[in-house]
C-alpha cells in the first residue's frame, strides 16, 4: 500500500489496533473511485478527505468501549478513596469533592485483611505449586510412558475437570470429618494451628490436578518423541528424563498452570466457607465478605478491600506474563 506522506505512515504505525480499520476504510473508498485509473494522486487525496471522518468515528467508538469496560474499575477505585459522606453526596463515577479524599478505607481494609491475606497465601501458593507439579508428572506418565489402561485413566482425569464445586461439598465435609487431621497434626506445634488451611490446601490441590494434567498433556504431546527416546538411550531413567528434559522444557506451561490455578484457588469462597471453622484460619475471601457491615454498608471500605484481595492474582499474572504467552501460543520443541 502506497502512502503519500511519511507523517501519515508513522502515525499509522503508532496507532496500533485502529490501523487496520482505517486501512480498510481507505481501501474501500479507493475502490469506489477507482473507475479512473489514471487520476491516482488526485483520487488518493480525495479518498483521504473521505477517510478522515471515518477514522474519527472509529476512535469515538473505541474510546466508548474503553470507557464502558473500565467504568466499574474506575468506580471502585474512586469509591475506595472517598469518605463515607462524599460517597453519598456524589455520583459513584465522579472524583471525590474537596475534602472528600481519604486513604482511611485502605488502611482499615489492610488492618482487617492482613492476617487473611497471609492465610490465603499460606495455602494457595503450596496448593498451586503442588497441583501444577503433580499435573505435570501425571501428564508425563500419560503421554511418554506406555502402559495398559492409560486411556481409561486419562478419561477419569478429563471427567474430573468437569465436576462442579457444589457437587462435592457434602462428600468433602464427610471426608474431612472422617480424617481427623486435628489429632493427626496435634504433635506438631505450629502446624497444628493451621489444620483448616491444610485441609483446604489438600482439597484444592486434588481439585486442581485434573485441569493441570489436561493442560500439560496437550503440551507434552507436542514434544519431539525422538528427543525423549534419545535421552533414554543416553542412559536416563524414566524419572531422569522427566527431571532433566521434560521439566526444564515445561516452564511456559507451568506459567499457564500457575496463573490459572492460583486465580482459582485464591478466589475460591465455597470450599473455604465449608472447610474453615477456626476464625484464626480465615482466608481473604471470607474476610472480604465480612467487610460488608451488617448495619451500614461501607462501600469505600469494601472497595479498598476488594482491590487488596485482588492484588496478588494480578501480581502472579504480571510475574509470569512472558512465559504465559509462550505457553498459550504453544512452542514447538
Amino acid at each position, binding site marked *: 500500500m502506497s502512502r503519500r506522506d511519511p507523517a501519515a505512515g508513522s502515525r499509522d504505525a503508532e496507532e496500533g489496533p485502529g490501523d487496520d480499520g482505517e486501512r480498510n476504510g481507505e481501501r474501500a473508498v479507493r475502490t469506489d473511485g477507482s473507475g479512473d485509473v489514471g487520476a491516482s494522486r488526485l483520487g488518493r487525496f480525495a479518498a483521504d478527505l473521505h477517510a478522515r471522518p471515518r477514522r474519527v468515528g472509529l476512535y469515538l467508538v473505541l474510546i466508548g468501549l474503553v470507557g464502558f469496560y473500565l467504568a466499574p474499575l474506575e468506580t471502585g477505585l474512586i469509591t475506595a478513596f472517598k469518605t463515607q459522606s462524599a460517597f453519598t453526596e456524589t455520583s459513584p463515577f465522579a472524583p471525590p469533592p474537596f475534602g472528600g479524599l481519604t486513604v482511611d478505607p485502605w488502611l482499615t481494609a489492610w488492618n482487617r485483611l492482613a492476617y487473611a491475606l497471609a492465610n490465603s497465601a499460606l495455602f494457595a501458593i503450596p496448593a498451586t505449586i503442588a497441583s501444577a507439579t503433580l499435573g505435570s508428572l501425571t501428564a508425563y506418565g500419560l503421554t511418554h510412558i506406555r502402559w495398559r489402561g492409560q486411556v481409561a485413566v486419562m478419561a477419569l482425569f478429563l471427567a474430573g475437570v468437569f465436576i462442579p464445586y457444589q457437587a462435592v461439598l457434602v462428600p468433602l465435609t464427610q471426608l474431612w470429618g472422617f480424617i481427623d487431621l486435628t489429632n493427626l497434626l496435634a504433635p506438631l506445634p505450629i502446624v497444628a494451628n493451621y489444620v483448616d488451611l491444610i485441609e483446604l490446601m489438600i482439597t484444592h490441590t486434588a481439585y486442581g490436578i485434573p485441569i493441570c494434567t489436561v493442560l500439560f498433556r496437550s503440551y507434552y504431546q507436542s514434544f*519431539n518423541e*525422538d*528427543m525423549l*527416546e*534419545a*535421552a*533414554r*538411550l*543416553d*542412559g*536416563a*531413567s524414566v524419572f*531422569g528424563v522427566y527431571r*532433566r*528434559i521434560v521439566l*526444564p*522444557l515445561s516452564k511456559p506451561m507451568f506459567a499457564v498452570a500457575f496463573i490459572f490455578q492460583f486465580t482459582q484457588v485464591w478466589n475460591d469462597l465455597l470450599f473455604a466457607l465449608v472447610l474453615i471453622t477456626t476464625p484464626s484460619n480465615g482466608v481473604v475471601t471470607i474476610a472480604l465478605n465480612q467487610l460488608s457491615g451488617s448495619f451500614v454498608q461501607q462501600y469505600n471500605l469494601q472497595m479498598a478491600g476488594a482491590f487488596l484481595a485482588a492484588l496478588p492474582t494480578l501480581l502472579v499474572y504480571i510475574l509470569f506474563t512472558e512465559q504465559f504467552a509462550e505457553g498459550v501460543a504453544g512452542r514447538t*520443541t
Partner: protein
Amino acid sequence: MTRVTLDSLTKHFDDDGNTVVAVDDVSIDIADGEFIVLVGPSGCGKSTTLRMVAGLETITGGEIRLDDTVVNDRQAKDRDIAMVFQSYALYPHMSVRRNMSFGLEESTDLDDGEIGERVESTATMMGIAELLDRKPGELSGGQQQRVALGRAIVRDPAVFLMDEPLSNLDAKLRAQMRTELQRLQEDLGVTTVYVTHDQTEAMTMGDRIAVLNDGRLQQVGTPLECYHEPANLFVAGFIGEPSMNVFEMEVEGEELVGEEFTYPISSETREALGDVREVTLGIRPEDVEVLTRTEGDRTESDRRGGDRSSDRDQGGRHDFRTVVDVVEPVGDGNNVYLAFDEAATGTESVGGAAGEESAVADDDRVAMDLEDSDTFVATVSGLRRIEAGEEVYARLPEDAIHIFGAETGEALRSRKLDDEETVEPAA
C-alpha cells in the same frame, strides 16, 4: 567391540484388532566393526528393526544378541547403544556442551573433569568446538547434525544406530557428510547399523547392505553383490539408478518371447531356467549398448575398422531395432529412453514364435502396450550425440542379462561378472 545378531526378528503391531506384521523373520549377522546399511522403501520395517535393536520397541519374536548376550529384555538405557535420529533430537534447552555431556553423566561414573575433557576432544574432532556454548536453536541444520553425531560418538558406545541421519541436509552437504561419516566410522571401528531409503547412500556407505521390503529381508550382501547379483526382482529394481529394465517374457525352446521382442538364449542359460515358463528379463541401463547399425547391416567399409565379428553376439542376435523416445543428459552420461519399433521387430524376428500366435493373443498384446508405456533406458556416454526420434539398435548382451522367475521373483540367472565384455565402439 561388539557383534550384533538379529535372529528371526519379528515385530507385530496391533492396529484396531488387526495384526500388522512390520518385521517378519529377519536374520542378519553383523560383524564387529562392520558398517551395515538397512535399506528399503518407506514402511518396509527398517526403522522398526533399528528401534528394536535400540530397545525402543518391544520384540514380538526372535532374538537380538550383542556379542552372545540376548538383550531382548534389556532396557534401552542399559544396552550401551547410541543413536542418531533423523530429527537430530537435540535437547533444545541445553547448550551443545550439555547435550554432549548428558549421556556421559547419565550412563557413566566419570567425574565432571573427565566428561568435560571427552566432550572437548570429541567436539574438536567433529569441528564443533566453537559451538559448544550455543543452544541447538542457534545452529544451522548441518551444525545440528554434527552435534547429534558428536553426542553419539562422545559416549563411545558398543553400537551406533543411525536412522536416516542425513536426509534433512541439502544435497551437497549430504554428499559431504556421507564421506565424512564413512571415514569416522572407519577410524572409530564401532559397529554401525545405518537406516536409509536412499539407495545411493546404501551403495556408497555400507560394508554390506541389507535390503528389506514388506518387513522381509530380501538380500544381505556387499553393495556390488546386491547390484550385480540381485537375489530377486525387488532388489534388482531397488538398487541402481536408473532402475534395471525389466521385460515380461515366456520361455519357448531356446528363446524368450516377449510382447515386444524375442530374445534367443544359449543352452547354458536355458538350463539355468529349469522348467520355469514365465520369466522376467532384466538388464541394467549401462549394459544396453546403443548402436546405429547392427551386424546384419554391415557393409565392407565397416568391417575394415577391425575384426568385430569376434564379438560374442554375432550377427546381431541380441540387437533390436528401437526408436529414441527421450534423451536426458545428466552430464557424464545420457539416459536414453528407447521404444521398440513395432514394425521392425516383426520383420527382425524371422521365424520367431510371434507369427504362430493366435489373433486373440495379438489383441491382448495391444492391450498390454496401452497399459505400460513401453520404453526402456540405456545410459550412454555424455559426449555422444543422440537425438529423439533417431532409429537405433539396442544390443542386450547375453552376459549382462538377469532372468527372474515371474511368479517368485527369485533370480534364476544373474549376469556374468568374471569375463570382461568386449566393448563395441559405436560408429
